[in-house]
């Protein structure tokens, strides 16, 4: 299912975008989620976690984006996305993390972390604010630009890798059967880079990427 490739992990961001887009109810949430899934998909595509031939171009909001066609992956994404949508609506999600692990050594190579600060008061006033397509496009483009920029300094993923999605939630939240608790899966000896933060009407998202320091440096 996975293979090695020396490209960035844009796919993940793009995927996250699609993820969230498919799930969110309010338009603000929708746009936020859409941005996220799109970014995650692009991370996964560019980082080469899945082979490029499993991706197809899709037109959304007048932009052509790379989405995966792998059915297993799609089902997984939809599952996670539906759950995430709920939790986002309830503002119980604190962070969303995409973890890339190397299959051979079982160690974490990259960590894309999105800190979500939810404005709980704004949630009640759920008058859907229509964001213009142009604004959405701008935001998507900015995210993609940022992710492409990060590609330049991220170390190459030489070995076969797999990704995982972690969600940091409130302690007392009831998780459904299909979800289980896991460790934070931190990187040992990591370098962190903060990316641009963006806001929707409800959330403020800070994004950053952490990668394992390579010893050759």
């Amino acid at each position, binding site marked *: 299912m996975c293979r090695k490739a020396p490209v960035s992990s844009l796919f993940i961001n793009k995927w996250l975008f699609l993820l969230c887009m498919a799930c969110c109810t309010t338009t603000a949430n929708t746009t936020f989620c859409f941005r996220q899934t799109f970014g995650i998909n692009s991370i996964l595509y560019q980082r080469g976690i899945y082979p490029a031939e499993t991706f197809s171009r899709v037109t959304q909001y007048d932009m052509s984006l790379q989405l995966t066609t792998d059915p297993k992956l799609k089902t997984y994404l939809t599952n996670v996305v539906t759950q995430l949508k709920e939790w986002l609506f309830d503002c119980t999600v604190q962070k969303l993390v995409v973890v890339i692990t190397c299959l051979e050594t079982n160690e974490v190579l990259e960590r894309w972390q999105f800190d979500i600060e939810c404005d709980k008061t704004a949630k009640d006033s759920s008058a859907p604010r229509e964001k213009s397509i142009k604004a959405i496009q701008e935001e998507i483009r900015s995210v993609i630009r940022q992710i492409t920029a990060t590609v330049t300094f991220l170390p190459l993923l030489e070995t076969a890798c*797999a990704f995982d*999605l972690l969600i940091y939630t409130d302690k007392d939240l009831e998780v459904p059967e299909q979800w*289980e608790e896991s460790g934070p899966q931190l990187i040992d000896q990591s370098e962190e880079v903060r990316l641009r933060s963006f806001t929707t009407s409800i959330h403020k998202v800070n994004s950053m990427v952490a990668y394992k320091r390579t010893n050759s440096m």
Partner: protein
Amino acid sequence: MSDLEDDTTIFSTLKSFKSLIARPERSLHEVEPAYGRSDLQKLYTQRVEMEEAAERIRSHTSLLQLTQEKQQMELSHKRARIELEKEAHSSSRDLQRQMDLNQDLLTKLRRLEEKEGKANQALNDEMENKKALKRSLEEFHKQANDKDNRHAEANQMVSELKDEVRTLNQKLQIQESKFSTQNLENQALQEQLEMQRKKYQEVNQRYQTLQSSQLSNTESELKIKELKRRLALQEQDSIIVKNMKTEVARLPELEREVKRLQEENLYLRETKENCSLLKEETEGLRKKLERMEKVVEEKLKLELEKEKLGQELQAWENIGQTTGLNIRKPEDLSREVIQIQQRELNLKQQNYTLTSNIRSLEKTRTQLQSEAAELRSKAQEEQKKRENQDALVRRLQKRVLLLTKERDGMRAILESYDSELAASEYSPQLTRRVKEAEEMLQKIQTHNTEMEAQLFKAQEEAGTFKLQAQAVTLELEAVKEQLSSVSENSSKATDEELNSLRQKIEELETERQRLEEQNNILEMRLERHNLQGDYDPVKTKVVHFRMNPTCVAKQQRAEDVEQLRVECERLRDRLRKMEAGGAVTTDDTTLVIPPSQEILDLRKRMESAELKNQRLKEVFQKKIQEFRTVCYVLTGYQIDITVENQYRLTSAYAERMEDSLLFKASGAVGSGSMQLLETDFSRTLSELVDLHLFHQKSIPVFLSAVTLDLFSRQTVV
């Protein structure tokens, strides 16, 4: 044309001449009847005219002639020119032709030169060829000579070889003779051999007897060994017996020793008990000693303490003496202390009262100061008022002066106006003027009063401001005085408080800074951890989907690894089987590895190659068989190769199957030189051998002779 023109001019001149001539005649004719006296004149004039005409005509003609000549000359010139040009053309053409010819000749020359050169080269080449040919010829001659030489040498060699052959034949004969002698020797040796055999048999018999005797020998030796061993044992026994005797002799002594030792044992046991008792005593004494030593030390310490206490007591007792109080007992001391404390309390109370008095006094002072300030301010106000009043007074006075002046002036004017009233007619105007003047005056007066009022207000305001300023300065001074008084009063008492407060402030400041730094560091650490993904386990938890891609991928990987391992094992087993068993057994159905294309191809090729080989072998076999049968049929001999380089020929007409001729290839295999080996059959053909092989030296002839001989023997003509 020019001739024609000349002719026309000539004709024209002639005509004119004729006309001239005719005119005078006419004129003559006309004039005659008119005048008589002017005939001569007329004639003269006519002559003159005619001469003039003739001169003119002559000139004309000369002109014409000249022109004609000129034209002719021009013509001739032209002709000459044309001719010259023609000549020039022709000459140029000739020249060109000459040039061409020249060039042709030159080219021809060159070609000829080239040809000459080539001919020379050809000549040279020919010369060289000739020389080469000569050389080759010489070489050929030389080669021919060489060949002749070689031929001669070959001939010599041949002769030599023939000689050699002869010598060899001689040698052969000698060898044969030797062989016969050898045969005789052989026989002799065989006889010897028989003798030797007999001897051998005898020897064998002796050997056997020897062996039997040896056996008996060994047996006897064994017996001897046994006997020796027994002897040794017996000797040992005897020695033991001797030792035992000596030991037995020692017995009574041992008994005595035993008794003695027992007594000693008893004695030692008793002493052991005493020993143990003594040891216990010693231990007890040691402990006592230690205790005593400890006691001694304590005693020393107590004595020291006692001395100290005694000293203290003395000091305490001396206090009474030093302080001058009536102290002998501690109760007195306590009493004194109590007294002192009471005194202290009293003093403190006094202190407090004093301080309260001071405070009250200060308060009253302040109050008084403030009252004083107020009073001062009031005084100043009063002063101001007074000054204002003075200013007012002055103004009023000035006004009064002005007014009086005006009045005076007005009066003067009025008086003047009154005085002048009677004189002039301008009284209404004057009255008007007066009115206007009065109005003006009134206006000026009101203006003046207004200005004065404004001035007054301004002065009042200035005065109030000054008062305020003074009051403020007074207050300031009062506060300063208060502060200084306060500081003076409380410097002694509150210096310490201030210092302590300042110290506290500094400490708090430093602590605050330290805490700030710590806070910053912690915040940074927290930030870092947050970036790395750390979380507060109390508030947050991390969840992920159970069947996430990483999990699935790991499982997949593990499965792949397992599969690969199993396959590896299987392949290894298969390899072992193959190495052990050779061919792959068919019951190895657990692992069916489809043979690769290469292997199949190679197998096919191998099979085809084997088939080819097989076929070639069969073909060769067939051919060989054919050839052999043909040889047998045609030549009458069956040729077999028995041993390497040996050929056995069996004739078709042989009387027995064993009759065969053996030939051996001497020299190189392909050279074809053969030698006949001796066989039974060849001995019977010795004459033919002599004739055909020794003298004629031809094997085919020999063979054919043999065939003929055998054939003749077989068939009966």
